[in-house]
């Protein structure tokens, strides 16, 4: 029954191409809603604890080989994450796509909606397929559909190029996973996640895990595998970048977890590998984010940072499992999982509001923005909530997950031996550094983009976007506050998911007191909110009595002459940039004023940072190799004698090799 419903949705999705243009959106929305309802029911049945695992065979009447969807708690959790963000994203898309209705023909929209639906469906399949081949197909469909979503604005050649390089990198990742699966099949005779256990139990674990980790890491965007991420997200329309960064990259995390479930030995080493790479991604990600001026690129780098945080949680969990430290295991993994959910919420929120800004101002460069707080207050509010949440500040949801990870480390410090404790100490430092840098980055992003005076006519002409774009984001905000304030209710199931998935028996006694801690946090958060409101009310009445004037900003004689005098993003990040120069490859293009120049003419000054990993890992090798290939391709000379020569040479070559017994 369930399976046939799912299939029905799959086949109905084809009709998107034939539905009249006016109905396309509502039709796709209807399909999405159906799928969301269906899958949510499944995951609810699992998370409510009634069943351990559900198998849903997808078989058509006349087809023998049927695909089987397998839902366990881990999948259920990810299904929830996917459902929330994807659905909200599609609600938001309605408003975001309106300006394009004139410029693009109906087919473009059909393709867009179709790929949106299929991105959603393929993500569902990715978390539900266990068999290797069908998993790979779903995995690749996911990449393909997201590719078509990214190139929605494909008239722009650069966007097209970006999209294609994204597709290729996804393909490379797929090949890694493919080879890993094939190795498993070679050893065990069957491929798929269920066969991993028997492979790991009698082979060395590290190499296969590395293969999987690279394959999934490319999707998740761990440094240095992140190179597609900061390119693809700015290129995509905002609702797409929202769900890509919010949900799709989490599929990589899902894959890693799925593999880790069955890893048998070398857990400690694996944990340390994950931990170190994640620390790297976290710190470098946010460090690179600070110097970006493209709002969405900045957010993309923050996705890398948050993936790093998630990875830190997972790595700690692995170390906990390895050392039999249940507290660390559960807290780390739970923190990581919860951060998956949290990040999907606030990152999509940030991308949506950034999209609203883009639609209102037609620029993503924050140097051209400013003063939007007055022009579009709702969007500004939403962005502020998002920034506070992503900085992990209480009382928002980001804090909860980071708190769990921190606690895992602090609690296990006293038990750990020297090296572990040093590792953990280092991780704590890294995490706190990430927090500080994130605050630095988002004070910059919010402050420059939304506060002060407009820096260009883009910003001064901005208007608040329509309700249909803001409303869905309020839903996200509601979720964020829910998790931030009522953390206990959310964390309990996450604990149980972790305990059940990783077979941790004595979960209850280690996690029991935690819920009380969380309730304490909720209380404090409540107190905080109350204090703020009380003080505000008091201030309001207090100021009633006094006379309140307005004037220009004082700041020792600065009267807002021209908005160009304001602090820019570059200058805000200057002192930081100074320190981080060697890493970020900051470049300045300028010409100095010569000695003999009494009246210097007009000068231009450009500064930009490029991603050192992209340059070294992607651009240089591919350029070199494609150049080589082009050099090799000189055979089609158009002269017959050459053509015959090839055959001649080939025959002689083969005969020679034969005589020399090489082949």
């Amino acid at each position, binding site marked *: 029954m369930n399976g046939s419903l799912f299939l029905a949705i799959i086949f109905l999705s084809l009709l998107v191409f034939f539905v009249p243009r006016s109905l396309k959106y509502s039709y796709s929305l209807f399909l999405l809603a159906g799928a969301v309802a269906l899958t949510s029911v499944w995951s609810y049945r699992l998370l409510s604890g009634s069943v351990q695992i559900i198998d849903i065979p997808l078989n058509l009447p006349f087809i023998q080989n049927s695909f089987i969807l397998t839902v366990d708690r881990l999948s259920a959790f990810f299904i929830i994450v996917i459902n929330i963000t994807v659905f909200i994203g599609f609600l938001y898309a309605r408003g975001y796509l309106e300006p394009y209705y004139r410029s693009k023909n109906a087919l473009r929209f059909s393709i867009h909606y179709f790929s949106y639906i299929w991105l959603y469906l393929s993500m569902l399949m990715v978390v539900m397929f266990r068999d290797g081949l069908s998993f790979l197909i779903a995995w690749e469909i996911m990449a393909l559909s997201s590719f078509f979503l990214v190139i929605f604005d494909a008239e722009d050649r650069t966007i097209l190029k970006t999209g294609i390089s994204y597709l290729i990198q996804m393909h490379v990742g797929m090949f890694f996973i493919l080879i890993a699966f094939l190795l498993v099949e070679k050893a065990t005779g069957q491929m798929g996640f269920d066969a991993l256990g028997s492979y790991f139990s009698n082979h060395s674990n590290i190499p296969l895990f590395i293969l999987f980790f690279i394959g999934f890491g490319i999707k998740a965007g761990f440094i240095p595998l992140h190179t597609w991420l900061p390119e693809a997200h700015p290129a995509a329309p905002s609702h797409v970048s929202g769900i890509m960064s919010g949900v799709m990259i989490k599929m990589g995390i899902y894959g890693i977890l799925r593999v880790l479930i069955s890893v048998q030995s070398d857990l400690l080493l694996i944990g340390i590998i994950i931990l170190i790479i994640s620390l790297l991604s976290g710190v470098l990600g946010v460090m690179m984010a600070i110097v970006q001026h493209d709002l969405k690129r900045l957010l993309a780098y923050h996705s890398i940072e948050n993936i790093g945080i998630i990875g830190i949680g997972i790595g700690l969990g692995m170390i906990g499992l390895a050392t039999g430290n249940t507290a660390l295991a559960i807290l780390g993994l739970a923190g990581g999982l919860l951060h998956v959910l949290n990040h999907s919420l606030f990152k999509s929120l940030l991308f949506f509001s950034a999209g609203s800004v883009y639609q209102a101002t037609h620029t993503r460069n924050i140097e051209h923005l400013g003063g939007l707080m007055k022009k579009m207050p709702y969007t500004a509010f939403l962005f502020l909530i998002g920034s506070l949440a992503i900085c992990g500040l209480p009382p928002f949801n980001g804090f909860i997950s980071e708190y769990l990870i921190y606690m895992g480390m602090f609690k296990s410090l006293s038990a750990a031996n020297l090296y572990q404790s040093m590792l953990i100490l280092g991780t704590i430092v890294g995490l706190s550094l990430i927090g500080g840098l994130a605050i630095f980055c988002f004070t910059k992003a919010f402050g420059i983009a939304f506060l002060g005076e407009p820096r260009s006519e883009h910003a001064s002409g901005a208007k608040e976007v329509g309700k249909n774009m803001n409303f869905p984001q309020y839903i996200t905000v509601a979720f964020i506050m829910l998790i931030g304030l009522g953390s206990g209710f959310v964390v309990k199931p996450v604990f149980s998911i972790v305990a059940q998935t990783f077979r941790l028996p004595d979960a209850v006694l280690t996690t029991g007191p935690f819920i009380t801690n969380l309730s304490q946090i909720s209380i404090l958060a409540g107190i905080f909110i109350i204090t703020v409101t009380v003080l505000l009310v008091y201030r309001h009445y207090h100021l009633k009595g006094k006379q309140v004037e307005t004037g220009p900003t004082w700041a020792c004689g600065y009267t807002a002459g021209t908005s160009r005098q304001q602090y820019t993003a570059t200058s805000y990040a200057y002192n930081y940039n100074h320190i981080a120069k060697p890493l970020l490859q900051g470049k300045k293009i300028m010409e100095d004023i010569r000695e003999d120049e009494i009246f210097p003419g007009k000068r231009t000054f450009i500064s930009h940072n490029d991603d050192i990993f992209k340059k070294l890992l992607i651009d240089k090798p591919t350029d070199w190799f494609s150049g080589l290939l082009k050099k090799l*391709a000189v055979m*089609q*000379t*158009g*002269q*017959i*004698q*050459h053509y*015959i*020569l090839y055959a*001649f040479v080939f025959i002689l070559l083969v005969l020679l090799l034969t005589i020399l017994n090489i082949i």
Partner: protein
Amino acid sequence: MVNYLIVFFAVTLMYFSSADRLTTYIKLIGIQGLLLCGIAIFELNEVNTANLLFIVSETLIFKTIMLPYLLTRIIQRSGVTKVHRLAMPGFNLLLFSIFGLLISVILAKILINPFINTIYLAIALFTLFTGMLLIVTHKLIISHLIGFLIIENAVFMFSLAIGNEMPMMINIGILLDIFVGVLILGFFGLRLKPHTNELTMLKD
């Protein structure tokens, strides 16, 4: 007797490498046809006479008379007499073909086989080699055509080598002449200029 013919055949091949006038080529082609005819007569003593007659007449009429005639027609029509080679003086070409002869003999030694006369094998391989060499080192498409004719003769010799066992192989080999016909028709039908050496619009 057969062996004399074969050796003579090899000598004509050597001439191919050294000559640089199309008329010489055509003469050589004719001679080769004649030689093949002779070889056929002496070699295929076991096949039934009808078949033998067919083969002989084919070689005699088609290879020895038709082809040279048509080729001369082409040359007369286009008035091209000398072949200019592709950056390869005749001397080197000769060296190459001697080298080729060496290789073919060695190869024939390796491929020694109870059913086949080794000399056949060696010369046939050598013929093939020469044909390929001619095509590879010439620019004019007409000399390509002649190179193909030589290859075809090589094939024919091969088929003669086992003609006793399976005469049908020869008959099939003769089918190749259809191609020669087609190629030559190409000159008349498609109005190809035999001295066009830049049929190179299609590249990359």
